[in-house]
Structure formats: C-alpha cells, structure tokens
C-alpha cells in the first residue's frame, strides 16, 4: 500500500515534520506501506505559480500525482491565524477536486499552545469532508508542551491504527475503482451516444 505524507511545516527542523514522521512510522509498524513524504515548503513557489498560470510545474505535478495515487494520506499543518496554513490550503486548492474521493486521511496539526487544538475539528475535518475523503476518527494535535508530556505517543498509535485499518479495508475498493475505462490517455470517457441520449426528452 502507498502512504503519502503531506507536511506543511516551514522551519528546518520542523515540529510539523516531526509529527508527520512519527505518524508515518507508527503506520509503518502496523502495515506494509511504501511511504512518500511531500514537503510543501519545497513546492511553495510552484503552488503560487499554479494559481497564476493554471497548471502545475513539474515537481508539483509529481506531488499531486503521488497524493492522487495514494492508498492513504497523513496531512500535517502548523496552525497559522487560527486555521491551517495558507500554503497547506493552497496545495489542496490546486489538487483536482475528485482526487481524494473515498481516500482515508489522517489529519494532524502542530501549534504553540493547546488552545488551538480544535483546529483539527473546525478547519481540517471540514476541508477533507468537502473533498469527500474519509477522515479517521482520531486527529492528532501536538502543542509545544506535548513534546515533553504524556499522551502524544498513545494518540499517534491510535490514529495510525485507525488509518491502517481503513487503508487495508479500502484497498480492495480502490483496486475496483481503478479498473480502466475503454480509452487510452488517462481520461475516463463517457461514450458520446450515452451523453447525447441522456439529454433526449
């Protein structure tokens, strides 16, 4: 199974990336997964250009393909101004709107204090619900203080377990979805007669 980790951390080293790696490692312990990490910082300029030019640059196109082709996602953002960062949102804004349909997603966030922890519920979860992804019940929020306190490892394990279960359960489904339609070139085509007949009164 292919697990893609999207991290929107900006600093190096980044606690957002640290949390992303902990979550990915926990999934890796529970299932046989290929892990690919997408660092949005490296794609920031191409993401901005996608908004002005209308198409992704090469690195961004590869990242979007990886996310679209994943069996499951871990997405992690720092909290900026009471929500996910603009860069994090922008990446999902340039993704095709159907790319995440039915895909298991683990949402996670980092912040300076625990007071922002509900960002998972009022920002992250609605975003991925809109994209018709399947968000695992446990989201993981790590405030600065959590890195020196009890509880974070247990939440990571629980969330990773939920993601692993969904990925395993849904991998059969996504295999069915990817049965090729009768056309080359990576497009799904509705035969024209069908399109025309649907309009007949």
């Amino acid at each position, binding site marked *: 199974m292919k697990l893609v980790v999207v991290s929107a951390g900006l600093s190096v080293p980044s606690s957002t990336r640290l949390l992303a790696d902990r979550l990915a490692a926990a999934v890796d312990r529970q299932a046989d997964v290929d892990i690919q990490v997408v660092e949005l910082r490296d794609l920031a300029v191409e993401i*901005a*250009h996608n*908004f*002005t*030019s*209308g*198409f992704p*640059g*090469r690195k961004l196109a590869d990242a979007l393909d990886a996310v679209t082709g994943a069996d499951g996602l871990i997405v992690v953002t720092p909290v900026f101004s009471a929500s996910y960062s603009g860069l994090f949102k922008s990446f999902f804004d340039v993704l095709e709107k159907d790319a995440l349909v039915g895909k298991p997603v683990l949402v996670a966030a980092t912040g300076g204090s625990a007071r922002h922890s509900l960002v998972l519920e009022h920002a992250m979860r609605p975003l991925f619900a809109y994209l018709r992804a399947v968000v695992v019940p446990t989201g993981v929020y790590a405030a600065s203080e959590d890195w020196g306190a009890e509880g974070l490892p247990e939440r990571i394990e629980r969330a990773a377990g939920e993601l692993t279960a969904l990925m395993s359960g849904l991998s059969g489904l996504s295999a069915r979805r990817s049965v090729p339609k009768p*056309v*080359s*070139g*990576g*497009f*799904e*085509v*509705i*035969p*024209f*007669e069908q*399109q*025309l007949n*649907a*309009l*007949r*009164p």
Partner: protein
Amino acid sequence: MQFGIFSVGDVTPDPTTGRTPTERERIKAMVAIALKAEEVGLDVFATGEHHNPPFVPSSPTTMLGYIAAQTEKLILSTSTTLITTNDPVKIAEDFAMLQHLADGRVDLMMGRGNTGPVYPWFGQDIRQGINLAVENYALLRRLWREDVVNWEGKFRTPLQGFTSTPRPLDDVPPFVWHGSIRSPEIAEQAAYYGDGFFHNNIFWPADHTKKMIELYRSRYAHYGHGTAEQAIVGLGGQVFMRKNSQDAVREFRPYFNEAPVYGHGPSLEDFTDQTPLTVGSPQQVIEKTLAFREYAGDYQRQLFLLDHAGLPLKTVLEQLDLLGEEVVPVLRAEFAKGWAADVPDAPTHASLLAAAQKEQQEKKEAAV
C-alpha cells in the same frame, strides 16, 4: 497544413506607455491585423467571442463579414464560438449568412466559454456547460443539414417546421472544430462527429496537450472516420519575435510581466520552458513549432496568438511580417517533409463540396 492567427480581442493598457486603446481602435486594429494576415500569406484569421470587458469581439460574424469583404483568400474562423450560451438557431443562421458573403471561406470552432457569469447573463447554467455543448451542437448540425427541422430538447424552446435561412452555401455546412483545453467530453464529441479538434495549448505543458490529442485521435478511429493519424487536429502557439533573440526578450518582457493571463506569475524563462510561448528569433519559433509534431503527429492547423497584452498595432504588424516572411514558409516546407500521404489537409468549403458531389454521384451510380 494551414497557418493563421487567432485573437482574443482584449483591450489592455500598453504597460510601457500606460496608454489604453479605445474600443474602436482595438476593433479596427483587429481588422487591420486580419488584412495583414492575408497580405503576408497566412491562411486563417480567427476571432474570439466575449461578452464582458476588457474584450471587444462580442459579434464575430459582423467582424468576419467586414473582413471577408476586404480579403480574397483568408479563411475566416472563430476561437471560439460559444455553443453553450448562443442560441444554436442563431449560430446556424449567422454562419450560413457569412458563408454566402465570404464565398465559403468560413469555418468555426465551438467552445464553452470560461467566464462564469456569461452563462446566467444569457439565461443558462454553467453546471450544464457540457450538456449545453452536446445538445446545442446536435441541433446546430440538424439545422444545417435538414431543410425542415422538428426538434425538442432540454435547453431550448421546441421547433416545429423550422427552416434555418439562408441554407448553407451549396448545401455544405461550414467545417467545425471543437476547442477544449481539459474536457475529454469535448474531444469525444469532436471524434464522434468526425469534426476537427483544436487544443489551445498555449498556456499548457506539452504532456497534457499530448494526452488530449491522443484521446481525440483514438476515439476518431473508434468511430470509423479514418485512422487515428487521419484525425483533424489544430494547435495554438504564442510568439514574439525579433531578428535578434535578446531584443525580443527585452522588448516583450514588460508585456509578459503585466499580461492579463499569466502576468505576475512564473518568470518569462519558466513559462517559455514549460509552454509553447516562444520569445526569440524567427529560427527559435520555427524550431519550437516544428517540435509540436513530435507529440501531436501530423496536424492540420497552426494558429498563433500575436496581438494581446497591450502590444501596439505597429508591433503586431511587424510580427506578422516576420511570421509571413521568415517563419511560415519554412514551416510549410518542413511540415510537408515526411507528412504521411494518407493524412488529409483540413477540410475547406471546396474539399467538402467535392466530397459531397462525389458521394451524390456514387449514390446515383448505385441506384442505376
């Protein structure tokens, strides 16, 4: 192979002077550009259709009729005609009228339009864009091919005993291209009817254009109109030339940086690397355009965008001189080399008329 230009018809301030042309100046400039296209030996002039500022061409057949009166050879076309928000009855009438006035030098390109509010302004719903394109075009074809049409559909008032006038010139409807950048449904539609497919690749990377054209070609063959290689493909191109490539870059950069479509985005260098835009010498334009064939195959129509982003008319006319004198003659010669013998040229009124007459003759002989 046909070479031509297509215009968006934008009224944009010249970023080097701050001056904005009046609508009248811009409309007259489009006409001057079309006349120049014929003078320098190009084959096609196509105008966009827009119903919002800063664009002027809302009434393409009015403009094309005026150009037809002042030209002899130029094929007059559109890029695109809005098959979604125009009444197909009016399209049938307007373009048949233009065919007669222009002695058949007319084809057109269907498009859906990319400005959301235009749909409600014309009483339509953008969410029905594809369905409008499908139903309206199916009706348009019947209006041109059947003298009396009885029709009922989803989007338009039913027609009982309706005859669209004038009838198409020689009873041969104009050839139709379907333009789409990213909708496989439109490539499928073009393939189904055996019409042309135009991919306006100018803001898109080659691998995307390649996928869309491959889809159209394979479906064209699927519907039995010929082999995939024989399908009728058109491409865009966007160029700015000076004899010396550094001069071209220096002169075009301020226009690029402020251009309405891609300004304030990627650098000129990135954009020329990733899209068909070429800013440089005529030789560079030749090389880049010839390379389109590597992913598009032998294709029938190449349209260039020259007049946009506030470039002054004088500069655009100089571009046309370079295109006509130094670029297109070489492209014609080079594209002709290795062109597969069984790949047809883009249909024209003359070729469609000849085909119709041949078909009639064969029917007669079969009846005897």
